[in-house]
């Protein structure tokens, strides 16, 4: 059997979401190929060819793939699908967008957000905000799967796969890219950071997030937030950690002024070490925290920054 991993990238760099997805794909068994669809994406194809366990890289270099729109990407995946038993992509906002479209065009189910591979047709996936894990067996001849990347380590980069060009598929011409407003930051990305410090409604406003940024800079950390902090406009939407935001599992997660609603816990409870700073000792976040500090964050956070030297 052969599995096609569809890479998530920005035409310049291959994110580690794809490297993690390759690990999941290898567990399914058989050969692993990677499709890089983009525009001027040679560097990405080269990086994909180095991933351990990848036998072949397909590159579709065409203007219609410059931005990952669902309709053209799905058309390309379906065109290539004949040669594959499984099509797999990371459960990023790109994968979540086009993969169900691929599944429907192939008349199969999609198995969303897998966290475990038991065999070539049996997978584990979280339901109810991660409060239950479902083991599902697929009877479809072709599997369409998205992967929760925090559940798999990244494949190494000692490989040397062949790289092959493939033609673009016909563009369905239904959607058009207009613009993008990306959050610029020198800090690591939330989903790959080793340390994350997140703020909630307790931060009171966006300016106060500067306190967290100072700590983040000392720890090489990413900054995240609860939904309440995003809804209130303290920080942009891509900071949101949780069931319906980003799923993270860093070595260290520091929750500041976050109560610990199930929807937030769903996004961070697989972190190795959790720290909670909250002035309410009854806050549910303390039930999952390894180290809880009951304190006013406006005192504790500057102290923490200083203590880190």
């Amino acid at each position, binding site marked *: 059997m052969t599995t096609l991993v569809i890479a998530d990238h920005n035409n310049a760099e291959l994110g580690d979401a794809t490297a993690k997805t390759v690990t999941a794909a290898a567990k399914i068994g058989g050969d692993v190929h990677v499709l890089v669809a983009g525009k001027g994406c040679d560097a990405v194809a080269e990086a994909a060819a180095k991933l351990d366990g990848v036998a072949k890289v397909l590159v579709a270099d065409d203007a219609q793939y410059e931005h990952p729109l669902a309709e053209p990407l799905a058309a390309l995946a379906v065109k290539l699908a004949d040669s594959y038993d499984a099509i797999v992509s990371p459960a990023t906002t790109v994968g979540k*967008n086009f993969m169900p479209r691929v599944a429907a065009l192939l008349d199969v189910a999609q198995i969303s957000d897998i966290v475990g591979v038991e065999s070539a047709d049996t997978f584990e996936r979280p339901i*109810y905000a991660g409060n239950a894990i479902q083991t599902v067996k697929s009877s479809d001849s072709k599997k369409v799967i998205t992967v929760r990347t925090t559940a798999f380590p990244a494949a190494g980069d000692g490989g040397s796969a062949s790289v092959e060009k493939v033609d673009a598929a016909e563009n369905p011409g239904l959607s058009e890219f207009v613009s993008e407003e990306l959050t610029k930051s020198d800090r690591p990305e939330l*989903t790959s950071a080793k340390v994350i410090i997140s703020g909630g409604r307790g931060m009171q406003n966006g300016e106060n997030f500067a306190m967290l940024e100072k700590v983040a800079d000392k720890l090489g950390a990413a900054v995240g937030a609860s939904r309440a902090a995003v809804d209130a406009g303290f920080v942009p939407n891509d900071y949101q950690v949780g069931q319906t935001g980003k799923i993270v599992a860093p070595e260290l997660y520091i929750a500041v002024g976050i109560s610990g609603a199930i929807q937030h816990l769903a996004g961070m*409870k697989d972190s190795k070490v959790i720290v909670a700073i909250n002035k309410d000792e009854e806050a549910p976040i303390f039930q999952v925290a390894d180290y809880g500090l009951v304190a006013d964050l406006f005192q504790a956070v500057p102290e923490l920054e200083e203590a880190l030297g």
Partner: protein
Amino acid sequence: MKVLVPIKRVVDYNVKIRVKSDQSGVDLANVKMSMNPFDEIAVEEAVRLKEAGKATEVVAVSIGVQQATETIRTALAMGADRGILVKTDDVVEPINVAKILKGIAEEEKPDLIILGKQAIDDDCNQTGQMLAALLGWAQGTFASKVEIDGETLNLTREIDGGLQTLKLKMPAIVTADLRLNEPRYASLPNIMKAKKKPIDEKAPGDFGVDIKQHLEVLKVTEPPQREAGIKVESVQELVSKLKEAGVIG
């Protein structure tokens, strides 16, 4: 312009579910059920389009057990004009939900279908995308802003890196993200009015959909639980614990 809004009846988001000890599923007996929160946002958006004079009719559809009628009533109380219940006691996987919705779309001929981005029980995040594929329509998922301009839909989406703006051809599919709007609470007079609004009852067979199961659930288990930690007395103690644990330098 007609807007179709598919809504799902799910376990209320405040409920902490329990896995059944025989691993057959999640215990849903006597658990509070509500409209999927993302679907409330979808209904709200449709109703606002109507209030703005852009939409002429809003139709709420739910596929599921008889009690899903209550969910449809909630949508009617928020301002939808009529409802359709596709009654089934079977498990309906997203691909089959999408096939049934396609059948409804072919009958109703909406110009826009707004769904929730994901149902908070199964967290599949698939149905809207699948429906778009089956209809051959454009899709705008995870929407935080929707503007209709004649035959085009301008849409802002929440993506991993920030925000993205797209232009879609109509008819189109939109799936609602959290920040598209803040759904209203239905007022008492509107709840009363909703009781008189029509709800059609259908069956999956009416749309020629035979519910073929693609996935079999072998078991449902509890995730590993975290062990309770300790409270530290001071920032100094916290820092030394974190150093001991080797997570900071």
